[in-house]
């Protein structure tokens, strides 16, 4: 292990309050819709009301005539000056990539696909003008869901494709066929996760100012990946990267949705170029439901082979990605990642696992916190519990039996990832011991005695984080890098600015970066400011803020940069103190000779010597200024993990699930700030619990989205979310300086299968197995009544009363 530890850690590992919060809580944050640029005009987008249709005519003449309208564009206008929307993930060789322009040209393939755009003096006029645009559609047969897409005679979304399959890829390890042949037990299930999305409370938005004389494109964008957005804008618009500036104001949540690159950025750019005005284009809530990336939509048909002692021999299956009518920025990435991680924390020597990406007339699929891993977690955690039931084994024992031992790390999973370090059994034991301490089993027994149905669920998850080694990412199909760059600069008065390409969207990045920089330099945290969100002043980050990268990669780069910068500070101080740098120490910004208290200088003196009054102070051999740049491209990723437990109550009369208590034992390597780690875990879990029980983007057979408002797309509220208890162990990441592993997605990965596990346990007398998510009351009541009904009878319930049901 090569772990660079700061000499002294004053801040790292402590519950420092977030420095970002006071101004945001006081309403002083600035989100993209708060930004006004001189001469700015506002755009709105006309969207397709049909899921699949040919556009036979668009008449924008009446819209153009409306007073206050500056310009109206259609797909043809846009396609004349802008390229197709980019896709950056190509994990499946020979995959058919369904591309589209930011405005549909001849055909629409999902409800909400952008068809035309208006820019006017303000949004009100722009929206009024949308109503004056007449579009003639010739409806085409709709491919509403996975089964419809795969049907032998299915209508095709793309006429030049043989079917609706974008691509398919199989990974194998060992000999799965032999493993299944020799297995004592095989368990199999088909799991379905409905559509959902990150649903950031601040919808997306941008302001684009295209200066045709300077040739520059100046963008304010609600994005998690400003460097990627700049590169992709360059590709689509044909403007060189150095003439594009992307600034990111405060983000009101991103959750991966704002990682992706959207057509609205391109629409606004084209409108700005045509009008010579800065153009603001803000997504309203209705837009957001159809135009922000959807995710999660997958079917996973998997089977697991085991020996009767619980040893897993093999895993095979297919992950179907139910993609939309065009590929989003990340293509088939998430369903592919489900296959990469479907073995989870277990040693499974024989694998035969396939991803199949299928297009449907739904909104494009994209990034959402956790990416493919929450669905992989459903596969391994559901199957291992079903196997435990089949074998009559304890759920914890069967998990423990299949973990790699601590000495087996780095552990190759069999497909793509090499898990860096861990003590999985210790984490499981920690969670189990806390379940005991909290008295859940007693509560369960007491409730059962009263006729109530309480259940305890478990989920063990892995979270591949710190994406990732650039060349390996390229190798597996990413047209982008994974390194992270930071600049750490001490100024002429000895204060420090950290510049990063990462984006702060609620995780507390600015706080932890200041903690790490302060510890790395030996200065007070108050002396550090962190600057992000401007491609002109901030360095380059590969990928963007996603893949649980900001803490491990940005953190490592800060530790490496500050280590070198501290050495230079000490060399300058040595000149001032007439001492050897090796004899100096720095603490709270004061530099003195170790073991003495007599003479000292401060970073202020060093800053002055490095920038202003160099004579006799700055060593002749040193370059003026105090600045270090570090680029960290990790040699391997870092795999966090955790064991989560949940106590639920199921109402057998209605199928409603109430969440009573939740705990998670977690290991993300070095913990920079336990409070913020807990916040990440809690927020992610809340999001997953919403996904497990409430949130679903429901499409009907016409491809219409039936849940496009908060009345029907139910986010979890504080009323539903149980108390959380978090317990940490720290197994440092061996490949990441500082030992930090990412934690941004942990909760979302763990929380969905977790609810199923708890519900099954609450209904263990019935033998219910939850396989479909979200677990809505009607779906669960179906399972309960099917389990209660003798085979051969159908539950009618016409005159059943609760008493009857007992």
């Amino acid at each position, binding site marked *: 292990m090569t772990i660079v530890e700061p000499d002294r850690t004053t801040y790292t590992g402590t519950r420092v309050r977030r420095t970002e919060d006071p101004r945001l809580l006081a309403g002083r944050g600035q989100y993209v819709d708060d930004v006004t640029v001189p001469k700015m005009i506002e755009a709105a987008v006309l969207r397709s009301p049909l899921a699949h249709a040919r556009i036979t005519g668009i008449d924008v003449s009446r819209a153009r005539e409306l007073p206050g309208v500056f310009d109206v564009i259609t797909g043809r206008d846009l396609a004349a000056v802008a390229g197709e929307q980019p896709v950056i993930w190509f994990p499946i060789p020979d995959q058919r990539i369904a591309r589209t322009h930011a405005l549909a040209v001849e055909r629409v393939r999902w409800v909400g696909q952008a068809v035309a755009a208006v820019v006017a003096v303000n949004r009100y006029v722009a929206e009024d003008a949308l109503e004056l645009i007449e579009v003639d559609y010739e409806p085409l047969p709709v491919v509403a869901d996975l089964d419809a897409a795969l049907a032998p005679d299915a209508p095709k979304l793309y006429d030049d494709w043989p079917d609706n399959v974008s691509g398919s890829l199989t990974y194998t390890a060992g000999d799965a066929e032999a493993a299944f042949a020799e297995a004592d037990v095989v368990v199999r299930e088909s799991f379905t996760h409905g559509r959902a999305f990150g649903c950031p409370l601040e919808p997306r938005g941008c302001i684009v100012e295209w200066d045709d004389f300077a040739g520059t494109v100046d963008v304010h964008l609600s994005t998690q990946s400003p460097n990627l957005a700049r590169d992709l804008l360059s590709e689509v618009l044909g403007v060189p990267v150095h003439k594009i500036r992307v600034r990111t104001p405060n983000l009101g949540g991103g959750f991966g949705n704002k990682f992706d690159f959207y057509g609205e950025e391109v629409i606004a750019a084209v409108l700005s170029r045509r009008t010579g005005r800065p153009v603001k284009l803000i997504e309203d809530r209705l837009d957001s439901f159809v135009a922000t990336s959807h995710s999660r939509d997958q079917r996973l048909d998997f089977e697991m082979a085991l020996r009767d002692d619980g040893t897993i021999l093999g895993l095979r299956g297919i992950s179907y990605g139910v993609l939309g009518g065009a590929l989003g920025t990340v293509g088939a990435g998430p369903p592919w990642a489900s296959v990469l991680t479907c073995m989870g924390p277990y040693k499974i020597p024989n694998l035969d696992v396939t991803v199949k990406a299928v297009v449907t007339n739904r909104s494009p699929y994209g990034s959402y916190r956790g990416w493919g891993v929450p669905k992989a977690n459903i596969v391994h955690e559901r199957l291992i519990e079903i196997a435990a039931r089949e074998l009559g084994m304890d759920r914890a024992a069967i998990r423990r039996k299949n973990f790699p031992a601590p000495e087996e790390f780095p552990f190759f999973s069999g497909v793509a990832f090499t898990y860096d370090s861990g003590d999985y059994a210790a984490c499981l034991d920690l969670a189990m011991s806390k379940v005991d301490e909290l008295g859940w089993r007693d509560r369960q027994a007491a409730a059962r005695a009263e006729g109530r149905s309480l259940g305890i669920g478990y989920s063990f998850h892995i979270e591949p984080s710190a994406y990732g080694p650039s060349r390996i990412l390229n190798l597996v199909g990413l047209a982008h890098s994974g390194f992270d760059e930071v600049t750490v600069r001490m100024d002429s008065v000895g204060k420090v600015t950290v510049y990063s390409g990462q984006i702060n969207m609620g995780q507390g990045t600015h706080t932890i970066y200041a903690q790490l920089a302060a510890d790395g330099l030996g200065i007070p945290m108050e002396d550090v400011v962190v600057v992000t969100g401007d491609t002109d002043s901030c360095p380059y980050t590969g990928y963007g803020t996603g893949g649980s990268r900001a803490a491990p990669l940005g953190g490592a780069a800060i530790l490496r940069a500050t280590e070198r910068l501290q050495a230079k500070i000490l060399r300058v101080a040595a000149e001032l103190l007439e001492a050897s740098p090796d004899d100096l120490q720095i603490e709270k910004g004061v530099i003195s000779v170790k073991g003495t208290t007599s003479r000292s200088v401060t970073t202020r003196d060093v800053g002055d010597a490095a920038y202003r009054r160099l004579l006799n102070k700055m060593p002749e051999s040193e370059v003026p200024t105090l600045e270090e740049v570090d680029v960290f491209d990790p040699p391997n990723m870092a795999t966090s993990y955790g064991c989560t437990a949940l106590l639920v109550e199921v109402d057998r*009369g*209605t*199928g*409603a699930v109430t969440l009573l208590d939740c705990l998670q034992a977690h290991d993300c390597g070095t913990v920079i700030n336990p409070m913020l780690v807990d916040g990440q875990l809690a927020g992610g879990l809340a999001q997953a619990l919403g996904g497990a*029980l*409430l949130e679903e983007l*429901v499409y009907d057979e016409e491809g219409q989205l*039936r*849940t496009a408002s908060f*009345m*029907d797309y*139910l986010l*979890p*509220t504080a*009323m*539903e979310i149980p108390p959380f208890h978090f317990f940490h162990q720290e197994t440092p990441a061996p490949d990441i300086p500082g030992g930090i592993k990412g934690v941004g997605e942990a909760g979302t990965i763990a929380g969905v299968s977790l609810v199923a596990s708890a519900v099954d346990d609450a209904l263990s007398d019935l033998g219910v197995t939850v396989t479909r998510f979200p677990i*809505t*009351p*009607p779906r669960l*009541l*179906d399972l309960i*009544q099917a389990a209660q009904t003798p085979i051969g009878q159908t*539950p009618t*319930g*016409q*005159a*059943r*009363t*609760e*008493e*009857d*049901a007992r």
Partner: protein
Amino acid sequence: MELSTADSVDEALDELSRRGERCRVLAGGTDVMIQLARREIAPEHLLHVERLGELRAVETDGSTRLGALVTHRDLAVGRLGPGYAAVAESAATVGGLQTQVVGTIGGNVCNASPAADTLPALLVHDAEVTLRSVRGSRTVPLAEFVVGRRVTTRAPDELLTTITLGRPAPRTGDVYLKVGRRSAMEVAIVGLAARLTFDGTGVVTDARIAVASVGPRPLRSVGAETALVGGTGDAESVHAAAKALLQDVDPIDDVRGTADYRRRVIPGLLGRAVRVCAQRAEG
């Protein structure tokens, strides 16, 4: 679209008389503003009545009368006093706090949503609504006022001013139960209100059962009520009541739940409601 604000009931009635169907009454705005945003309605005129203080009163001497502008929050915190638990419970489940503090009972009644939470609770308390116009005033039972999905017998020039509830007899318990996915801020999959009066020996002497989200409008089930009277809330009478109730409802499949699901949860919900009423009648 024009907006005007009425400073007195008479002024509002004048305005309604002049504009009739072209005018939409706006109180808390929790339904009207959403319908406007979704372009479901496009009135020429909005008549803002929220400042009519006289419609905010709650009178509990003799009969219980509440002004149309009493908010859900007023009801949720129990301004009607004991005996109206169902009304408080139903109002407490309408939207979030922000909705409750502005949304009014009169608005909820006139909106006549099939899923209106407060309507079953008002129905089990024999609610009557009073409507005024420049032509005069009339009082009709709520059950006759709401006649269909989002349809009432309100004439275009009428303003709902008062809702009158019956006085609960001694040894009466009432409750509102809601089946949904989320604990709050959700449209009910099924809403059920009950009010039962018992004699000294625990026999039901009077019953009211009303449901929402299981048909075009919230409704009372006289059949279920009849089946409960004379019983003790025992399994047999609940069973019979459930049977009768299921005959009265006509649920549909929607994105929240299927008709079949709605029918399946009703018996259990009714049994639970009867038990709670019995407990509350004792206390």
